[in-house]
């Protein structure tokens, strides 16, 4: 509260530790010189450059896709192709056999006789 009693007092006093700043007038340049000179936008160059980049990327994408396709065709020979082939064939046969065993379950009947009504008379008998 003591500090705020006379708030106008310090306006007239000089700060003790602060050095007096010398105020010098800065010459202001003319407003026109502050605005940068407007360069003409090189639209043609941008389009040519951008188009080139896009075309390059497009070709790259197509090449990658083509490579992916080809990589499926070209396969490195495995160390023992005959053994691998035999094993996969046998595994396939086992899978087929398993499917057939499941289908052969006699207790499962997926085609029971249709549950159609035998009493479809207008005058009931």
């Amino acid at each position, binding site marked *: 509260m003591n500090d705020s009693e006379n708030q106008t007092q310090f306006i007239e006093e000089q700060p003790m530790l602060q050095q007096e700043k010398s105020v010098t007038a800065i010459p202001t340049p003319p407003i026109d010189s502050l605005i940068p000179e407007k360069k003409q936008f090189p639209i043609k160059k941008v389009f040519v450059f951008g188009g080139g980049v896009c075309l390059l990327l497009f070709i790259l994408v197509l090449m990658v896709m083509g490579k992916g396709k080809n990589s499926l065709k070209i396969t490195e020979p495995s160390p023992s192709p005959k053994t691998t082939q035999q094993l996969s064939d046998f595994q396939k046969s086992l899978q087929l*056999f398993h499917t057939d065993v499941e289908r052969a379950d006699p207790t499962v009947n997926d085609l029971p006789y249709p549950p159609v*009504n035998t009493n*479809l008379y207008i005058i009931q008998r």
Partner: protein
Amino acid sequence: MKKRYIIFLIILFYSAGFLRITQAQTEPPIAPPQLEISKQQYIQSLDVYREKEQKFLISREQYNQLQTLASLEEVVRTSKDVQLARMDTLTAYFNTLLLSIQNLKGAEITKKANQGQLLQTALVEIERQRNTILTSNDRVTLDKTSANYDDKQGAFSSIAYSSLALIKISNIQSATDQLGVLTGEVYTSIQESSPSATIFAEKQRGYDELARTIETIKMSTKKATQQYDNISGRDLFTQGAYAQIVETLGTGYAKLKQGESFIQELAQ
């Protein structure tokens, strides 16, 4: 500038994605098997039948209560609808059975041919009855067509159950044949791999056990085939007869499952 590049890139990647999609679309679709299509058609026709049956039962009830010409007209219409739907359901069902018989792998050719012939006969009879229903437009004739169906219903179900029995027997026969082939393959590969005497002896015991299992399955299938032969052609193939065959095959099927686990063990 940046925005333009981003837009270009987006267009580029979308076009690449589009290319991939069109590539995928040009690949030929895998057609579902004919039998599956037939089963779906049968299920759909059964749904239609149930709906029509419900309508008929309601209109019959109304006719019984009201006894008016309008309610009679309605019940005649719904009776015709439900009887046609019943024939359509049976047609779809017997067509599915015919396809199943034709696709059987383990059945004897003569049995397949005979069963196929029976199914064709049933389909012709159903078509004949359907045509009669189509030309019937009054209470008396429609009740007569309904009685015609009831007379033939036993024969229809007999053909259906004998077909189902043959399918069950053949499926087990086919699986047993496959088990035999696989056993032979495994045994050859064991011999080729020239294992130690102990391992070979162990595998040999497994092979012998598997051979005995196959014999048991064959015996069970033979018994079921005899039951099938005894009934078909002589008597009506009832649901009970079919259940008996299923029971006989049950023993063989349990052995077949055991054989499957044996072959997997032997192959390891």
